[in-house]
């Protein structure tokens, strides 16, 4: 490369950088996008924070009623599926429905519920009505590992939603 062509290519690079700087120099536009991004982050925090996930790892001994939460009585009101890895005796998820799916079987309904910054899949009883996205939802049941790796509550009882 000759000194002349090197000078030319350097000038071209400087001119491109200047053009990019001018194109990005829009303080009002970036102020608006920053406000929008702040709103998005706040909305995410507000959607994911409310709710709770309570887990009872082992089945309490029969007769030991002291300190047991009221919802625990629903933990044995159903048949636990055996085709999934059992993670805990029982769990109660309270959160917001973010998505729902039907299938693979016709009557099968799954929900994705976010509460207390946890994402939990909830399998409803076959043929149950599907809560709308955004609604508050509470369910109790055994905690298993879903096929996709997330934690899944097999809803023996829907307390809200």
């Amino acid at each position: 490369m000759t000194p002349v062509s090197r000078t030319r290519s350097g000038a071209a690079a400087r001119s491109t950088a200047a053009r990019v700087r001018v194109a990005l120099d829009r303080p009002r536009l970036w102020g608006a996008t920053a406000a929008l991004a702040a709103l998005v982050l706040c909305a995410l925090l507000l959607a994911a924070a409310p709710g709770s996930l309570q887990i009872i790892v082992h089945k309490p001994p029969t007769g030991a009623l002291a300190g047991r939460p009221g919802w625990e009585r629903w933990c044995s009101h159903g048949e636990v599926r055996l085709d999934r890895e059992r993670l805990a005796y029982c769990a109660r998820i309270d959160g917001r429905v973010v998505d729902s799916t039907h299938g693979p079987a016709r009557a099968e309904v799954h929900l994705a519920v976010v509460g207390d910054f946890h994402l939990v899949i909830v399998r409803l009883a076959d043929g149950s009505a599907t809560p709308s996205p955004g609604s508050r939802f509470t369910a109790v049941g055994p905690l298993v590992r879903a096929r996709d790796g997330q934690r899944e509550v097999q809803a023996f009882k829907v307390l809200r939603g």
Partner: protein
Amino acid sequence: MKWLGVTVALLAASAMLVTWIFLRDRHVPDWGPSRSAVAHEDARAVLASLEGYHCHTGCNYRLLSSSGSRWLARVSVPWATRCFEIDIKTFEYSPKDGLSGIERVRCSG
């Protein structure tokens, strides 16, 4: 340009929040051998314990099904076919103590 940086930082924070919620309780597969590979290894150990390591003909095993960490294996040696439920989490074989984490079950079908 300052607000551009703020926008990028806020969007990155949102993306990180969503990713964290998605991944925090998710099961991350171990880096070790797959469950299937472990089950095959355990079934080979069962076969070896039945017939020794020098069986060349008529010795084989087949993994029939699995449920969690429990695998059903059909093990055949020249003189018998037996089925076992192997728990790959607890299975152990030692020449001194023999097999553990395994249960003999009836072969169906």
